């Protein structure tokens, strides 16, 4: 099979899918032209800085949906600071791997989380470093600004 069982599970039964009306932070990355868009919503407890709820909407291939789903699971209930450290590799690993040409989707998931956190920081006037401003740029599959390498 092209995809691992974990990927197929998260694709066919995605966790945390849907809109969140009262999100504290929303991040959207990718674009329709290249075939993947992820929007990630987070709810953060202002006291503890823990992500108490997370939702996503994704337009994209099977692995885009699966990585979105897995990413939400990995950050739900974790402090924002930990969510920021979520790497695409961690997502891929948690999914038992992805085909090489689909790795870019996991990058997108990593980015979506960071974008949501950035939005939360912005909305709440929390300062953050340069490294959070930019696309991590290790996605070689598309020609868009956030993709470097």
């Amino acid at each position: 099979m092209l995809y691992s069982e974990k990927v197929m599970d998260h694709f066919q039964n995605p966790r945390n899918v849907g809109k969140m009306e009262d999100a504290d932070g929303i991040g959207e990355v990718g674009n329709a032209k290249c075939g993947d868009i992820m929007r990630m919503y987070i709810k953060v407890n202002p006291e503890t800085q823990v992500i108490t709820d997370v939702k996503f909407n994704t337009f994209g291939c099977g692995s885009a949906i699966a990585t979105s789903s897995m990413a939400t699971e990995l950050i739900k209930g974790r402090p924002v600071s930990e969510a920021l450290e979520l790497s695409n590799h961690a997502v891929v690993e948690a999914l038992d791997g992805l085909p090489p040409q689909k790795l870019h989707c996991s990058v997108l998931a990593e980015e979506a989380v960071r974008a949501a956190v950035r939005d939360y920081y912005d909305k709440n006037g929390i300062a953050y470093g340069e490294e959070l401003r930019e696309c991590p740029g290790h996605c070689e599959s598309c020609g868009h600004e956030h993709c470097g390498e």
Partner: protein
Amino acid sequence: MKVYADNAATTAVSETALSAMLPCLREDYGNPSSLHSWGQRAAEKLEEARAVFAARLHADPKEIIFTGSGSESDNQAIRTAAAIGEKKGKRHIVSTKFEHHAVLHTLKQLEQQGFEVTLIDIPASGVIAPAQVERALRPDTCLVSVMFANNEIGTIQPIGAIGELCRSRGVLFHTDAVQAAGHLNIDVEAMHIDLMSLSAHKFHGPKGVGVLFARRGIPLTTLIQGGAQERGKRAGTENLPGICGAAAAFDEACANMEENAKKLTVLRDKLIRELGRIPHSVVNGDLVHRLPGNVNLCFEGIEGESLLLLLDARGIAASSGSACTSGSLDPSHVLLALGLPHEVAHGSLRLSLSEYNTEEEVNYIIDVLPGIVSYLREMSPVWDE
């Protein structure tokens, strides 16, 4: 329910084809180049298979060679015409933007070797006009290569008219008839075809057998050097079981062509009609000049792979774009050539039927698909209807 609706990618081997293959795999295993009875029996079978293709295509057996795939036939046909052109100082080739990659990549390579290639634009109908070819012709054009029917949207090109034009201008004409063979009537004589590629696994023959028609007098360029098989034009011990299976399948497909087309057209049109009702869907390509089994739609706000995987989970095999680029991330070059925007081209679905499909299966697809489209649209961040 299991529904295989990806017959443009490949087909099931017919019982007839399998029956023709088994004796070659069991008792008649001789090498057609061998002098002894085993070999001569094999050689006879090889020539019988050649005669089947010749008869059905209105060609001479000497004009038929067997290769290992439709792609190989495409490569060899185009390289042949290029070599002939080269000798005359003619280095311009006319083709279209929606050819198969076996054609386009070969042309790309020829460009690197100094050829100029004009790729004709595809109208929204997916059917090019002979006048477009005419406008593209130059005094140094050595080849026109236009596919008989497109593999993604199934549109049928005016091959006879293009052939006539090319003949009158003294330009070689190649057609990639991989999708047409066995489904549409092909007459190389009447259609003035000089070079033509077929692939057995697209008409219920086995994988691994290509056919190349080259009009008498056209000196084929050899891609694979070695023994004297196929009159020195394609070395390598002939894949006799495959070739016999291919001939049996082709003969059967041609014999039942009208009947199959009639049946398939009904199923196809029902699918197009019913699936076309899904909001924000577009049917791609002309509805009349179309392979009897081809259905191709785009659903806005849908990404093709997710759609396919969910269909597959419901037992339905379909495709988005052609199989051989399914590993790639780019949307179909065919749909882009049709003028669809990237974001729409991403959401394409090809259902390709064969005579083995039933009305029940078609109804099942019609039942299942709308729900999957809605589900995916609901999940999408860009879809607000």
